[in-house]
């Protein structure tokens, strides 16, 4: 009976994202039809088997998205909306890049200390929002959005101070990380010289740590309890203020790692061309993956897949690759609705199930004859 219950749980869990993707498919097709674009050709392009080079790009993109989505999910699990992952990862990547670029420490030691700096920078940046919420009651949604804007300005300002100016180039970068402090990639996919980021392991490690801490520790229990019902958590002895601050710090710390695969596996410096917008993708992916470490992995892969596959749209079928933003947007919107629908359906099913189980047991006697 327990197996049946779990099977149903898994079925319900899958129903929502599948539903959402279907809705996205329909809406996007409608948009294409209305715009007079070739519907079949677009889907053929998006759904072809990606070439090995693209497979590597998809996996690499996904590993970065994964870190971002986990950072968001940590907040989500206790009803904190950390919209500021975007600012946090940029502040952190910049700080780590400045340090690592100096090459003060040899090889891996340089990497490890840089990672610590990134974690601390991200945590501190998010901690500002946490501290404001705890002491002044400022909504973290507002403060993290503001901090994103501040982060953008602050990082550009500081970048111009520390820039390793190359004559004849208008690209500003921090000092390039010395070769011994770069993370080697894995040649996992045959048929292409491109390598998968070595820091995909970091993403996996963060995912495992996220799962273990949340599901297996007292702290995780407190955090989940606070997310499910703050009032019940307070009555159970959780100090909600401390939880808010801790969760923000952790979320920011994870956000600090978002830029690391890029920094140590591809760019080797932080500059004006460093990939933007990762934090916002993380919000969507965390929603899609339902804050579950495995779900997030699938969400991140889907996101990255759509992006890489869309690159060819303009050339092959003459449709702007921005189409993918429509698909992604609809998926997120649909998934939020679908999860709520599925949650309610699941609750009803469970209540009925419980009632059926109980009615098999000797229950209360049926009432005697009702009056006319």
């Amino acid at each position: 009976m327990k197996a049946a219950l779990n099977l149903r749980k898994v079925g319900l869990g899958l129903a929502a994202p599948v539903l959402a993707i279907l809705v996205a498919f329909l809406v996007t097709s409608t948009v294409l039809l209305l715009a007079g674009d070739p519907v079949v050709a677009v889907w053929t392009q998006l759904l072809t088997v990606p070439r090995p080079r693209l497979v590597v790009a998809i996996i690499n993109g996904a590993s970065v998205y994964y870190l971002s989505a986990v950072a968001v999910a940590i907040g989500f699990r206790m009803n904190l909306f950390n919209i500021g992952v975007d600012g946090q990862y940029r502040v952190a990547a910049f700080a780590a890049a400045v340090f690592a670029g100096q090459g003060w420490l040899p090889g891996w030691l340089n990497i490890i200390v840089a990672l610590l700096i990134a974690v601390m920078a991200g945590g501190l940046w998010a901690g500002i929002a946490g501290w404001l919420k705890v002491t002044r009651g400022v909504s973290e949604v507002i403060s993290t959005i503001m901090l994103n804007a501040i982060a953008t300005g602050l990082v550009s300002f500081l970048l111009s101070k520390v820039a390793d100016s190359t004559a004849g180039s208008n690209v500003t970068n921090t000092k390039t990380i010395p070769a011994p402090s770069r993370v080697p990639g894995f040649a996992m996919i045959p048929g292409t010289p491109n390598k998968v980021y070595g820091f995909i392991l970091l993403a996996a490690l963060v995912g495992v740590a996220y799962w273990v801490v949340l599901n297996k520790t007292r702290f995780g229990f407190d955090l989940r309890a606070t997310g499910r019902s703050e009032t019940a958590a307070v009555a159970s002895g959780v100090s909600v203020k401390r939880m808010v601050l801790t969760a923000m710090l952790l979320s920011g710390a994870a956000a600090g790692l978002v830029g690391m695969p890029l920094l140590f596996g591809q760019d080797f410096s932080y500059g004006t061309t460093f990939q933007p917008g990762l934090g916002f993708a993380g919000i969507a992916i965390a929603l899609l993956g339902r804050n579950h470490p495995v779900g997030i992995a699938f969400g991140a892969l889907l996101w990255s897949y759509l992006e890489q596959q869309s690159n060819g749209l303009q050339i092959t079928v003459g449709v702007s690759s921005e189409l993918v933003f429509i698909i992604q947007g609809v998926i997120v919107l649909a998934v939020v609705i679908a999860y709520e629908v599925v949650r309610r359906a699941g609750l009803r099913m469970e209540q009925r199930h419980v009632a059926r189980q109980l009615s098999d047991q000797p229950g209360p006697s049926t009432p005697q004859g009702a009056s006319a």
Partner: protein
Amino acid sequence: MCAITDSAHSEVDAGSAGGPAVELRGITKRYPGVVANKDVSFSVQRGTVHAIVGENGAGKSTLMKILYGVQRADEGTILVNGAVVSLHSPSDAIEAGIGMVFQHFMLADNLTVLENVVLGAEKSHGIADRARAEIERISGEYGLDVHADDLVADLGVGKRQRVEILKVLYRGARILILDEPTAVLVPQEVDELFDNLRELKSEGLTVIFISHKLDEVLSVADSITVIRRGTTVSTVDPKSVTSRQLAELMVGSELPSPSTEESTVTDRPILTITDLTLAGASGRDILHDVNLTIHAGEVLGIAGVEGNGQAELVEAIMGMRDPTAGRILLEDSDITDWHTREIREAGVGYIPEDRQRHALLLDAPLWENVMLGHQTQPPNVRGVWIDAAGAKANTERIAAEYDVRTPSINVTANSLSGGNQQKLIIAREMSYAPRVLVAAHPTRGVDVGAQAAIWDQIKRARREGLAVLLISADLDELIGLSDTIRVILRGQLSGEFDPDVVTAEDLGSAMTGAGEGVGEVR
């Protein structure tokens, strides 16, 4: 078995002024997990006060929600003035002349009576002078004594209720449903309400009155329909039944009683509160110089109209509010400044007033709910790690021992009935060897079976030498279970009442401050 069932079974038409205003035929409503109503049939004569009585959880409220269009029945028909109606929403019900006064008032404090009344009914008489005149007319006609320009915030509970009634009349209702209207009133206000109801009746309006307080029902109703476990048991004439007979109809054969056995009170103080004061925002203290001592094996009951500081007292004890002054001692330890978690670890069990908001994680499985509040204690944890196996085994054990009806400990708390949720909460609090049990309204909104089980647990706690603080709005429950009763009024505790001699009337007077000092017998 019940003699009166037959004698009083014939349709009662006391004071009928024409055909039935409302008739229900074969109403059935199923919720997941329960059949809330099953084949409910009765008719209400025009110009009468018709009472619907039944225990908590018998299905009265669901029935009334169906009649008011909030819920839809799965089967059955509703006739209003002889015509079949289909009620999809409250506006359909209002259209049909049915109005409902809910147990919890739906008034905006910072608006006037006029503004509250016209809100949502702006079309009928505008929002200004015409509406004002209409309100004064209704108020005068039915003796409601409310005035259009009074600020709701300034009105007492009884008057607010009359504003609710006026709101319904203003919308043209000829049939009024009152859901447990006396639950929030003290005895003196109840009398006033009943005068109003008689006034409405004499004007030809029909009142459906839901209650589980039999004496009140007998005094005001012209006809009484008894509901038990979701179905109509009988419709009786109040002149031909006693409250004892009515009670037996309500609960079936056996009547559970909250009364305790011989005293187990010791002279060992467990919880001592001295001069506890909690300053309020408006300058008046929410709690003022509260002193109380609960000994091992003693149940201290606190009576009071809701909102007089009992909720804050509980929160102060549980460390969820910092008192402005005063000390709280748990045996010899001063726990005043302790954090909630430390207080719970020290052995203070807590049954919160609002179980869904404060005691449960509705979306979490039962075994996680049994950890809640004890997530630092064995068998739930080992060091920083959760011991899921231990927690599950513990949940299995207490679910069996405390008769929590569930097919599995892996279902969510949301899928249990209210009574089973509450049994689980009490089982949880009792299973971590507490010294003190703080129980706020432990039987609110649970069915008769669970109520009896919960009373048994409180009696057991008392026998096992716990100090029990019982806060309840049910005066019979307080009188039955407590060794000592105190009344809280405007944040201050009265002297002690002896539950063996005190009556609900005495407590009622003390609760409103009407008879200051009267009835203090010790």
